């Protein structure tokens, strides 16, 4: 069987950044596998601007951001295989892929980096029984058709879910001549970035129905109408609040989940909240030598952070294959009050880098709070925030020295400034 030092699965923003960082950290034998015809991932269909402000200091369209990274990778001795789909992964890091040129191949990897991106939720999004006519799409699928093939999936559109993809598609479809009648969000707050609420909905007078969900879809072969209803605090529809819309298309923008089929096959522990892998301070999963990053680890709103995470995973994998880290002791890091999840889940202060970026999402919209990292009652770090929202990933940066004296599990909580 052939063997490689590092195999990266998925050639989106995370995978490309991981490859570059692995090379820059001294690994000279890297294989990058991508199932599509070219590298770039989901960004290739995100033609709107808004990418790269942190990284390049300019607002690029998705394909431009991807191209800049592909250009950086181009001259490095990283072997890239496109049209190549990984179908198996085991805990000994045997990676099996298929492609038209080689057929079915298994490689043994010194380290594997999972950068597979995410899937769109669709099932279970609509609480209506039975038959589903055509005309119901996930927002990302509709985006791919429109932006890469020029095919507009419908003319009168309603959108369920206020995720960013749905908001961006609302604007895009209006510009292409469709009518978007509204967006329903089951939660009492929007899940999209505030800027997308403004520039995609408000700018085009598209109404947003908070605390509403779709309760009926009509049409036999093709969708011809939907009904939305207000929901109560337990998210159950309230009778008598129905509003009907005549539409031929319903887009679902109800969330993304990390693609973890391969991780599960390899036996990696998954995180109950993020639905991605549980990782330590080096983005390593519970299976030694298997790393995870990007939307395949937890869903990101900003690609700049995806690239950064890819770089962390790439650098860590390079060190791992050189045998540079064997942790002495890891301590658990858990979400405290008001926090929905934190990553990493385990921190080993003895081998951590000089700085560790702890990523988290909060549970609700709040103002004037602090994010507090503690070991028991002892405060390790505190960061003030003017506002926090579940739709925005937060970060707390801790230095190695600040964690030197840790001897037990840590929690990260949101607290009012008081």
């Amino acid at each position: 069987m052939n063997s490689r030092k590092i195999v990266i699965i998925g050639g989106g923003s995370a995978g490309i950044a991981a490859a570059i960082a692995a090379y820059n950290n001294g690994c000279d034998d890297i294989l990058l596998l991508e199932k599509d015809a070219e590298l770039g991932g989901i960004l290739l269909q995100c033609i709107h601007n808004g990418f790269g402000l942190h990284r390049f200091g300019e607002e690029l369209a998705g394909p431009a951001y991807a191209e800049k990274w592909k250009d950086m990778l181009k001259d490095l001795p990283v072997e890239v295989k496109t049209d190549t789909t990984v179908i198996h992964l085991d805990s000994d890091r045997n990676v099996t892929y298929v492609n038209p040129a080689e057929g079915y191949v298994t490689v043994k990897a010194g380290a594997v980096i999972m950068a597979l991106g995410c899937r769109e939720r669709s099932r279970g999004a609509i609480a209506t029984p039975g038959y589903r006519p055509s005309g119901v799409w996930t927002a990302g699928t509709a985006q791919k058709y429109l932006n890469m093939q020029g095919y507009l999936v419908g003319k009168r559109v309603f959108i369920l879910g206020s995720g960013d993809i749905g908001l961006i598609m609302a604007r895009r479809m209006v510009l292409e001549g469709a009518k978007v009648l509204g967006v329903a969000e089951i939660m009492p707050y929007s899940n999209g970035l505030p800027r997308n609420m403004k520039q995609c909905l408000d700018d085009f007078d598209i109404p947003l129905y908070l605390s509403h969900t779709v309760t009926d879809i009509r049409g036999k072969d093709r969708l011809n109408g939907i009904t939305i209803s207000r929901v109560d605090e337990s998210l159950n529809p309230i009778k008598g609040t129905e509003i009907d819309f005549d539409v031929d298309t319903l887009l679902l923008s109800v969330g993304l989940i990390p693609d973890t089929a391969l991780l599960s096959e390899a036996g990696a522990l998954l995180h109950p909240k993020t639905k991605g892998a549980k990782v330590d301070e080096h983005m390593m999963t519970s299976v030694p030598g298997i790393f995870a990053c990007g939307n395949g680890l937890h869903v990101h709103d900003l690609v700049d952070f995806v690239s950064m995470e890819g770089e962390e995973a790439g650098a860590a994998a390079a060190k791992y294959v050189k045998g540079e880290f064997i942790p002495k002791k890891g301590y658990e890091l858990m979400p405290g009050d008001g926090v929905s999840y934190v990553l990493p889940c385990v921190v080993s202060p003895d081998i951590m880098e000089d700085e560790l970026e702890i990523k988290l999402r909060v549970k609700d919209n709040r103002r004037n709070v602090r994010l507090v990292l503690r070991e028991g009652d002892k405060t390790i770090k505190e960061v003030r925030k003017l506002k926090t929202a579940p739709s925005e990933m937060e970060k707390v940066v801790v230095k190695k020295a600040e964690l030197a004296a840790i001897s037990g599990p840590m929690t990260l909580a949101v607290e009012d400034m008081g």
Partner: protein
Amino acid sequence: MTDTNKKVFTCIVCPRGCEVTANLDKEGNILSIEGNSCPRGETYVKNELLNPMRQLTSTVIIEGGIYDRLPVILSDVIPKGKMMDVMEALNGVKVKAPVKRGDVIVKNICGLNVDVVASRSM
């Protein structure tokens, strides 16, 4: 009653999405602007009050590329009210591969002094 009124904007210049408040007098003149984390937020709100500007991205038909559409972006923002005009002008625009990122696809579109450029190479 006071002589001032407040208008609250979500700055869309970057993903941070600051909530920026403009304090205006009776005539609508700007007295002060607050809540922006950087100077671009101030410029944004001034424009928003006078003449809102927007970036626009779309696609044009491409022949001989790996996909049927080439993504395009404007070299600069345009007045919000002109977005539909630009979309119409892009209708039917056709290019042939190869194209390089940054290539001008339509010069000075709709006389707005901005160009339509390719978002990627293909």
